[in-house]
């Protein structure tokens, strides 16, 4: 089955990004496809490569990057939400791309299930 995921909150502040990531990993482990993760609202803050958590903590941004590299998950950051919050191509972590809200609509039309994680 083809899944689309929406992440509406930034990393660390809220559990949403962690829950979304663990859901993706479990879906892939079961042989499903995670076709796209769309980052919206403060969720765009998951995409900055300037993120540097303490060493004993999980690196949420790098974890998403790895998921994209290893499983071809398309990580899309909403351009309007990103511009509002200072997320640009210059500070975008590998594996993420900035695009329009149409990509979110597509994640609804072209997948079997769309699941939202937020606050």
């Amino acid at each position, binding site marked *: 089955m083809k899944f689309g995921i929406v992440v509406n909150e930034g990393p660390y502040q809220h559990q*949403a990004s962690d829950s979304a990531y663990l*859901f993706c*990993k479990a879906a892939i482990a079961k042989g499903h496809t995670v076709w796209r993760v769309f980052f919206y609202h403060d969720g765009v803050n998951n995409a900055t490569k300037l993120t540097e958590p303490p060493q004993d903590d999980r690196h949420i941004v790098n974890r998403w990057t790895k998921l994209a590299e290893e499983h071809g998950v398309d990580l899309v950051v909403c351009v309007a939400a990103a511009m509002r919050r200072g997320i640009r191509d210059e500070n975008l972590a590998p594996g993420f791309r900035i695009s329009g809200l149409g990509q979110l609509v597509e994640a609804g039309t072209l997948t079997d299930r769309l699941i939202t994680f937020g606050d």
Partner: protein
Amino acid sequence: MLHIINKSPLTNGSFENCLRVAEAGEIILIEDAVYAATKGGALEAKVREVMGRYKIHVLMPDLEARGLADRLMDGVTAVDYGGFVDLVAGNKNCQSWL
């Protein structure tokens, strides 16, 4: 339909709002909503009352993280993330009550 709740029922109305609106179906409690699935709290009676209408699941890693794995109410099914995926896949659609 699968309804996903992520807020503590003691500080936020989303669980009860979901119960008011949602047709019979499945509910999964994740993140801070797992407190709704514990024994001995103010919500227990309410949860028991609606069990006939909804199949209620709880995301066990979230319950464990909060130190309440041993307080899970009878009748609520514990699932891991794989089980969560199965629930999403097994229902026609899902709604997150954010």
